[in-house]
Structure formats: C-alpha cells, structure tokens
C-alpha cells in the first residue's frame, strides 16, 4: 500500500520550518544588514521595501551567502576551516566582516545551548575569530539534519523574513502587509535556492546596501 506521505520528507519539512521560524534563537533579529541605514537615508521606503529585499536575495544572498553556506554544509574538518578562511578573505570591509563573525558567535552559542554538536573544523574557525555566520549556518543546518536544498531554502527565507521583521520594528511596514510581500517573494526564493557549483567562490556587490551596511550611524537600533 502506498503511504499517503513521505515520512523523511515530512520530517525534513518540519525541521526546515522550525529552523526558519522567527522564534528560533540565532541572534539574527538584531541585525538589519544595512536596511536601517538605507531606510534612514531614503534609499528605500515602504513602497520599495519588497524590491530592496528581492535585490538583496538576488545579489548578496545568491552570490555570497548561498555559496558560503553551501561550503559550510558540504565540507568537514580542516577543509571546512579552510573554507571559513576563504570566506573571511573575501570580506575585505571590516564592518561587515566583524558583524558576520558576531552573528556567527550567536549561532555557535545557540548550538551549544541546544547541544547540537558542530563540526570541529567550524569550532576551530570560531576560535580563530572567523566563525562567519553564513558558513556556520550551513554547518548548523547540516547538523540539524537538513539536506543542502532545504538548508538553502531555509537560509533564503530567513534572510527575507529577517529583513521584513526589521522593517516592521523600525515602523516602516506593517506585520500583515509584509507577510503578503513575503508570500509574493516565495517563488523567487524557490528559484534562487539552488545548489551552487562546488568550485564557485562567493562574490557579492550591491553598492547601496554595502555602503549602508558600513555607514556609521548614531542612534542605531540594530547592530548594523
């Protein structure tokens, strides 16, 4: 008799939903990755918020975070530590580099508290101060049992949800309207959450958000 559902796939979906949920403690709620400054400077507004997030998904996430995460998911041991070094080298600007390791530290703390054993190669990287978030996220999601496609979808959804959540807390958008925007972005997230070529290196470049991310601001509510 054919089962009505596929238990492993259902379990993977449940795990992915839990790990992408805003209630999952990973520290990301305190980062806006440039959105706060961009909103303050008028580079993005309520009307263009969803476009900004779509652009972030297509550029920063697709070209950099996706690659970094995939390496973290695929590699182990010394090769994983080397991958952290590679990603660190590809982040020449100090502010985003520092914030990435700061966010990574929170994810390490979450794993430790949850007794989720991360790969020794990742722990070695954190001890060296290069535990970047995206790579750590790949290691973490693999340790939680997610395969790479689900890990990528979880990461992309988390990035978009986090940006909308930041906009809500900054008073720019409503919690209901942003859910409509997030629903509309789902096909894009699905389209982008594809496995990268293992030989590919992360590369990013979105001048507006890169500059916004590095711009110092007084009276900031978010870490960046």
């Amino acid at each position, binding site marked *: 008799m054919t089962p009505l559902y596929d238990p492993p796939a259902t379990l993977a979906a449940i795990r992915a939903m839990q790990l992408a949920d805003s*209630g999952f*403690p*990973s*520290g990301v*709620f*305190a*980062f*806006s990755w440039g959105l706060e400054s961009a909103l303050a400077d008028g580079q993005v507004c309520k009307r263009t918020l969803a476009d900004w997030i779509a652009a972030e998904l297509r550029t920063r996430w697709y070209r950099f975070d996706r690659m970094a995460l995939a390496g973290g998911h695929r590699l182990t041991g010394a090769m994983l530590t080397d991958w952290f070094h590679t990603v660190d080298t590809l982040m020449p600007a100090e502010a985003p580099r520092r914030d990435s390791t*700061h966010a990574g*530290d*929170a*994810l*390490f*703390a*979450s794993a*430790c*508290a949850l007794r989720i054993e991360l790969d020794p190669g990742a722990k070695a990287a954190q001890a060296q101060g290069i535990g970047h978030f995206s790579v750590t996220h790949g290691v973490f999601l693999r340790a939680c049992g997610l395969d790479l496609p689900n890990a990528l979808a979880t990461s992309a959804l988390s990035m978009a949800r986090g940006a909308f959540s*930041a906009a809500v*807390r*900054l008073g720019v958008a409503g919690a209901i309207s942003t859910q409509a925007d997030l629903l509309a972005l789902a096909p894009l997230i699905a389209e982008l959450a594809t496995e990268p070529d293992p030989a590919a290196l992360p590369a990013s470049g979105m001048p507006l958000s890169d500059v916004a991310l590095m711009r110092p601001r*007084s*009276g*900031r*509510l*978010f*870490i960046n």
Partner: protein
Amino acid sequence: MTAARVGIGGPVGSGKTALIEAILPRLAESGIDTAVITNDLVTDEDAERLRRGGRLPPDRVRAVQAGACPHTVIREDPTLNMAAADRLEADFPGLDLILIESGGDNLASTFSPDLVDFWMFVIDVAGGDDIPRKKGPGILQANLLVINKADLAPHVGVDFPRMLAEATAVRGGGTVLPTVCRKGTGIAGVVEHLRREVLFK
C-alpha cells in the same frame, strides 16, 4: 561555564546602571571577579558610562545591541547575550560573576532561564506607588525585587512603607530590598543577597 550569570531588568530610568555602579566596588572588596554586559536599545550609553566610571577595566564591560527589542535579547532569543558571556568567560578565566543589564523595558520583561541563573528587577518610587499592585511578570517572577530611589518617596507623594509592603505581598513574601543607589543606601543588602543566594561565598 563557571561564572554565575545574573540579570538586572527594569523600566527605563529606574536605576539599573546606578545599581551596578554601586555594587561593583563592594563585589571587588569581597574578591568577587566580575564582568558586565549591557543591552542598550540604541547606543552603547550604559556600557560607556560603566567604562568611564572606572569601577571595572573597560574590556570587562561589553555592550550588546538589542535590535529594537530589549525583551527579545534577554528572553525569546538570548543568544547574543549568551555569546557575549561565553566570550567574557573565555577572555577572563576564573570569572565569578557576569551581570547582564537589560535595556529599559516595561513591567512584563523577564529573563530567560537559558541566559541567567538569577535575575533581579529594579523599579523606583518615582514611577508611582501603584507599580507593585500592577503585578507585571517582572515584579512577580524576579528572584529579587529592588525598589530604588526610596529617598524620593516624600517628594513624589509615595507612602514608601505601604509600597514596600504591597510589593512583598504581591510577591508572596519574595525578597524586596529598598535602595538609594546614588547614596549607597541598601547596597550592602543587595550584595549580601547575591553572595548568599547566587555566589555561595
């Protein structure tokens, strides 16, 4: 992890930072190796104030920004504070105590038991003598309730003995300590409570 982690929460302006400033010298006198984490809402104001105060070496005061949510960073998602505390313990082996000061919040703020071993809630008489009667989770659930600025009671029309009695009653007899942090009044009692209930030394 070996250091006790103690949360200090309470409304804006109630005297959380002043309490830390007041207890740090007494903790040092008692040989209790201490570090502090502040959770400022917008700036590093509280951390800078503690660093400037000179009661601790500057690198023993770490600031965690709260992403517009002072309660989230101590309760729903305390991982940034946990990471900061872990880092402090790695940087200063042998720490006895890490004080984690919440950003100013409302009476509903509470600390996650994943983050702290013990937490106290600081209110002040200038906020009104009806605060204990409002029974927010901060008032009810904190291990220790501190009522600060007790000396202001006559100036703001507060019957302080009654406020103290009502606070003790709503907490079911849980400890309530009055202080005037700026003048050092009641601080010895807070430190003694921490030593007895948390540090065991």
